[in-house]
């Protein structure tokens, strides 16, 4: 019995090799030819803008808290009109494991993953991205969402004039 198994075990690999000699290769000649990853591929992160063209990120620190390898850092600041935004925002892609937890945590849908995967570099600082390199000019995958129109803060539109809000109460009135 075992003799038969040994013979089969010796011949089969040669047969497989022989078969693949006449198949088309699955590898591509990277970098001359590039693969198009799937739409939900988890590649380099970007910061998107809301439909009004404003930065979506409010520097809430949720992505940096969610990140298991601590590669996001930022400082929040306040704009004249009360909008909270990131004074600076840094992602260290040499540490990032592309797990996507940050994008799941992001309440404003600012942080999104793209299909860009070409991040290798000999220069470490080249993969440390600052806000100006992360920020893109569009909404990315979610084009309708504007956090400030839903937050009641009165930044995108005056208080009480966003959908689903009543006008500010007049606490001086005792009428019903």
């Amino acid at each position, binding site marked *: 019995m075992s003799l038969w198994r040994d013979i089969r075990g010796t011949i089969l690999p040669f047969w497989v090799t022989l078969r693949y000699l006449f198949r088309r290769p699955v590898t591509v000649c990277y970098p001359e030819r590039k693969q198009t990853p799937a739409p939900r591929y988890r590649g380099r992160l970007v910061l998107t803008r809301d439909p009004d063209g404003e930065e979506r990120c*409010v*520097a*809430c*620190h*949720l992505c*940096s*808290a969610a990140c298991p390898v601590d590669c996001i*850092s930022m*400082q*929040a*600041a*306040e704009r004249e009109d009360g909008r*909270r935004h990131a*004074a*600076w*925002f*840094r992602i260290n892609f040499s540490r990032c494991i592309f797990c996507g937890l940050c994008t799941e945590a992001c*309440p*404003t849908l600012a942080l999104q993953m793209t299909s860009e995967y070409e991040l290798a570099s000999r220069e470490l*600082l080249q993969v*440390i991205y*600052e*806000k100006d390199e992360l920020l893109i000019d569009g909404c990315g995958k979610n084009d309708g969402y504007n*956090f400030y129109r*839903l*937050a*009641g*803060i*009165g930044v995108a539109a005056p*208080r*009480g004039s966003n959908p*689903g*809000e*009543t*006008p*500010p*109460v*007049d*606490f*001086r*009135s*005792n009428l*019903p």
Partner: protein
Amino acid sequence: MPTLIIDNQTVTVPEGTNVLEAAKRLGIEIPHFCHHEALGSVGACRLCAVEFREGPVKGIQMSCMVPAKDGMVVDTGSAEVLAYRAQVIEWLMTNHPHDCPVCDEGGECQLQDMTVAGGHGIRRYTGPKRTYQNQNLGPFIAHEMNRCIQCYRCVRTYQDYCGGTDFGVLGSRQRLYFGRFSDGPLESPFAGNLIDVCPTGVLTDKTYRFKSRIWDLQEAPSICPHCSLGCAVTPGARYRQLQRRRARTNNRTNGHFICDRGRFGYGYANHPDRPRYPLLGHRRVTWQEALAALQNKLQELGELFGPGSIGLLTSSRATLETQFLTKRWAAALGSDQLCFEAHPGRDLGARVAASQRLDRTASLEDVRNCDLAVLIGADPLSEAPMLALALRQAARRGARIVVVDPRPVELPLAYERHAVSVEKLGQLLRGLSRPQQSEFPSSMEELGGSLASALLAAKSPLLIGGTDLLGPQGTEAMQQAAEACSQPETPCRTMFLLAGPNSFGGALLSAEGPCFSSLLEGMEQGRIKALLCFEADPLADYPDRKRSRAALARLDMLAVFDCAATATLQEADLFFPTTAVEESTGTLINNEGRMQAFEQVFSAGTPLAESAGGSHPPRFFSRDIPGSEPQSAWGILGALMGRSADLLTLRSEIEKNDHRFAGLSQLEARGEGRRIAAPRQYSLSHQPNISGIMGSDQLQLLVTETLYGSELLSNLSSCLHESTPSAFVMLHPQDAARFKLEEGKKVLLGTPVGDLTLTLRIAGDMVPGMAIVPRLRGTVLEPLVPGTEPLPCRIEKA
């Protein structure tokens, strides 16, 4: 002592404890909003529901409203209870905005925690949400009313606990509004506590706005360094910047709250002008160079003029460890020219205060529980703000509070007020120390007699004195008065307000040592050639600045070790940067002799916000941290003496060396601190009373502390500047009429430091014949230092 069963565990609690607190003793946290240990229960939020299975009450009840009783069987997590709580949370969330990402409370928000704990995740209510307009509540507190859950904690804190009147609840039904009637800064000096008590993000710290999240902050238990009470605080730092202070709980001292000076006075650690590297002359040098220069100079002076030519000075800002090592080093150098406070009056005052019997010394807890407090020459809001809050709690329980003071003392409570001149305060105290003989001066007979009998009759009477106004003699007189007004079962305790957070430690260590006047004499005569100042500022703190400036100018070497850009630093030949309280560990002894350890919050360094200029952190790799050169003063002293810089060894040594510090090495920063084991040996050598007799129409000038602007470190905090008054002088209406002066107008005040142009304020509740000015650093009033005898002055129209 009822015994009850909560979640199958048995617990026995004191009579009157509610079920919520009883459960806490077992480590069971029942979700709640409106209950607060310091504020009590009101049963408003309905979140703390539990099920009572057996006992006097049955069914679902609010655990905060039901006192624990024998035989109760309580289930805190039955299915019905959980469903009830989930409902309550869902109601609370119907109007809550969707703005946690831009809310500073996020991460430390009780509403977030309770929503998660209550299991409410998906919103079912689809109707519109209520919105509000916010108010500008001044420089300290940001307001975002949309987030309110109507728990009333803020009103109960502001109005009931702190005695503020300008913030409250307005409106009705669905329109409840927690704010002021109109925009404007909150008036109470305890307003910052709203930040801690509001369980949501309605009231947050404006100075900390958008700076961090709690999970990114470095925090550690610390002590407030801005007055002698030593309140427990939790500072938070990030990116080398001290970003906020919160109150920490210590039931013996501050309880749950702190004052706004303590909360917002943290800016000194980040001050852009803070000197962060060693200086030789005005040249930046390395630590090695600076230390070598110091050692060489000391050796040279020692050889030429003997060890007595070296003077050493620390201050009430220095930690016990620093003070102790300074003393050790003085001994090693062979110098006896060592002093622990640059202000002789304050030095002697603290020495007397520290000799009070420990069982006669009151803590803030004793103040909260007293039934009669007589304040003589003490202005709590200026000298020790949290004392005012403690007195208010006593008054709320029905205590009688009597204030005898030449100044217009304000307190957030109902109290009796007697305007009495400075000399008469001493006479009153001397009279009180012989209550039976009623030896009061004629004008004081009625007041003195009634106070003496009230003190003798009260259950827990208290005498509170400010050492600045009383001076060493007055402080001693108050101790004698307390002794005389004590009954065997009802001892009369005292509390003395001292100059700084560790005045007491200096007073204990100073023994019979010289005070700074005699060091100055030595400098003037050329006996003392070098002065080493450890976190001391003799130029600004010695009452006669001309004299101290001239004496310091005669020195061969002035070496300064400090964390702030003080006046003395400008004159220094050698400078060594030391750490701020938050950047190191140490021990401070507060005004009742409580040793309190504090831990390091963060490591010294120029804040990233400053070194990166608002932009992102630098894009290069380096091990050097900008501005990280400051070292703890005791660490530097250890290095100078060639000892190991281990805190625990040092503390054990202090403890072994001096039995009064017993227990120091076991002191935990998180605990309640520990009273010293024994008071100072009593020793006031009687000096002649130097108050000159002044003509009756001669105006006397009294310099006092103020809430903001007097204390060195908090005055470096820029967020307090908006609340700091501009230079003014106060007069009694009679005197104003006598000199034909008008309120609000500029007047010229002739003082020993020159003619000052000030704005006049008229105060009806002060004594006539006196002009009162606050000590305000950075103004024309800066050279005037409190804690001296009244000065002669004149006043006229500017």
